């Protein structure tokens, strides 16, 4: 066997392999079509969008998924699908040095807004955050909580948010809608609520 010939042959193969590695789908942003039921946030939770939405490929955590109409800075719907006890809402940057608040054992519904606030403050370095209302609400056919909040984001823009959450068998299911207080929150709120109405956990 001619060693030189062999190595010359393998070089193109390596090139092809590396080209595949480079161009392999870096999971592009997705498209969520009207009326098609889809699973969200790697959980059993499904929604049937009443209008077209965009799915962002960036995932905050294993069980988190972000949808948007015009870009996440203008309207951001994030689903948290079945976060288990002992897990944070989003992936921790550093488990030891920058731990995030976790879903607790025997968590109360009223503690969910505190969990979201703590996550936003610690994970996104948001110094101004206020929960503006907390009310009982039904979610996925269960007793749940609906809350609203307001915060100053890192771009120094004030954003408002509305979230609905529930705990099923110890797992946390939540959907949040975040948008700039100026114009976009009011503009997108009904679209978010309409999407949320279709959420089902079989």
């Amino acid at each position, binding site marked *: 066997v001619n060693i030189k010939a062999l190595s010359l042959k393998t070089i193109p193969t390596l090139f092809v392999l590396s080209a595949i590695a480079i161009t392999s789908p870096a999971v592009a942003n997705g498209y969520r079509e009207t009326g098609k039921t889809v699973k969200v946030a790697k959980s059993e939770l499904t929604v049937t969008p009443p209008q077209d939405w965009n799915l962002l490929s960036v995932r905050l955590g294993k069980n988190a998924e972000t949808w948007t109409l015009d870009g996440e800075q203008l309207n951001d719907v994030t689903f948290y699908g079945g976060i288990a006890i002992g897990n944070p809402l989003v992936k921790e940057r550093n488990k030891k040095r920058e731990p995030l608040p976790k879903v607790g054992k025997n968590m109360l519904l009223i503690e969910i807004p505190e969990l979201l606030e703590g996550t936003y403050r610690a994970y996104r370095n948001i*110094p101004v955050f206020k929960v503006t209302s907390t009310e009982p609400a039904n979610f996925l056919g269960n007793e749940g909580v609906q809350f609203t909040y307001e915060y100053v984001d890192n771009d120094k823009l004030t954003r408002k948010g509305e979230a609905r959450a529930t705990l099923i068998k110890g797992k946390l299911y939540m959907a949040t809608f975040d948008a700039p207080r100026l114009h976009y929150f009011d503009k997108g709120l009904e679209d978010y609520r309409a999407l949320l109405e279709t959420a089902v956990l079989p």
Partner: protein
Amino acid sequence: VKAIFCAGVGLLCSTFSPSPALATPAAAPPPYEGIYQPQGVDEIGLWREDDESERSLSNSPIVIRDEGLNTYLKGVLCEAVGFDRCGSARIYVIKEPTFNATMSPNGTMRVYSGMLLRMRSEAELAAILGHEFGHFENRHSLNQFKSHRSGTDLLSWAALLASMSPSYQSRSNFENLQISVYGNLYRYQRDQEREADLLGLGYLNSSKLRPQAASEVWQNLMKEIEASTSARGLKKPRFDRIAYTSSHPPQAERAGYLADLAIPEGATRDDGADRYRAEISKWIPEFLNDQILLNDFGASEYIINSLAETGWTADLWFARGELFRLRGNQRDYINASQFYREATILQSDMADAYRGLGLALMKTGERTDAQIALSKYLSLKPEATDAKMIGMMIPKEETE
């Protein structure tokens, strides 16, 4: 190479050796030269950019625009650096729970709320403000900009020359040069911090405040960092090591030379701890809340305990209760309940303490007591934003 390097970045080489000036008490600051205006294209450009950033800062939603607080801080700055000098700085209090303050070239001083939470006296505050003012007076931002420019200019030319003789040796020489230039830029920045510390202590020595407080700031910070790392189960930090990219001298070094820089006869001076506490106390609950929600148990516990050295207040007990309840171990709820109770003993109408107590008791299975606490919360704060939710946790007859 070293000779060429030093010629190229002379500015950097002049500051190699640690200054002997840091071992004796700091001299009084030089006489005030009057209102300073930027000189030359670099400085004028830097100030112009900075004016722009100050304009957006002054409209920023994270600035605390409380007149009383701002007047007080300005007063402390003037007390520290002198009434002639202090007019050239504008203070902005930023709501951000970290220990920091910055000064930019045109005299914009940013003071972080987390710093105010950690200070224990006017003298400590004056030490920080004086240090920041020292950066301004010595025009550190400009010098740093220039040193970065000379350093990177040198590297650009060196990269060009190295590419002209593509040998292994020239590549390796270039890489060595790169490491030493970057290392010296960081070292230069640390020396600027030392210089600002020296000048800051100069101000403090000439003021009416106790200069020894400057060193105590760093001693407290080291204790806090230790508390934070030990609660997180991390290795004990080393406070005497300088990392390659450190922007500041290590805390132990600063604590050491700041103590030496303070004039001994200043030790008996007033440090204004009572005045400071009186001014800041109304902000403590809010700043503590911001700190607690950072999820740094050790540091928060250290801060609460050190604030409580002068006596526990209802606000401090409440904050401690929240801290333990939010950590959420089963044993934490028991401690939290006790802390909330202490808060309600000192202040019987503290609605949020009853809320915390109720939620903590729910967790430990003491449902009846929990419901009593929660209905007390609702009766004290019927318009609470979570009133409906809390109401669901109480049986009907209790809410009536």
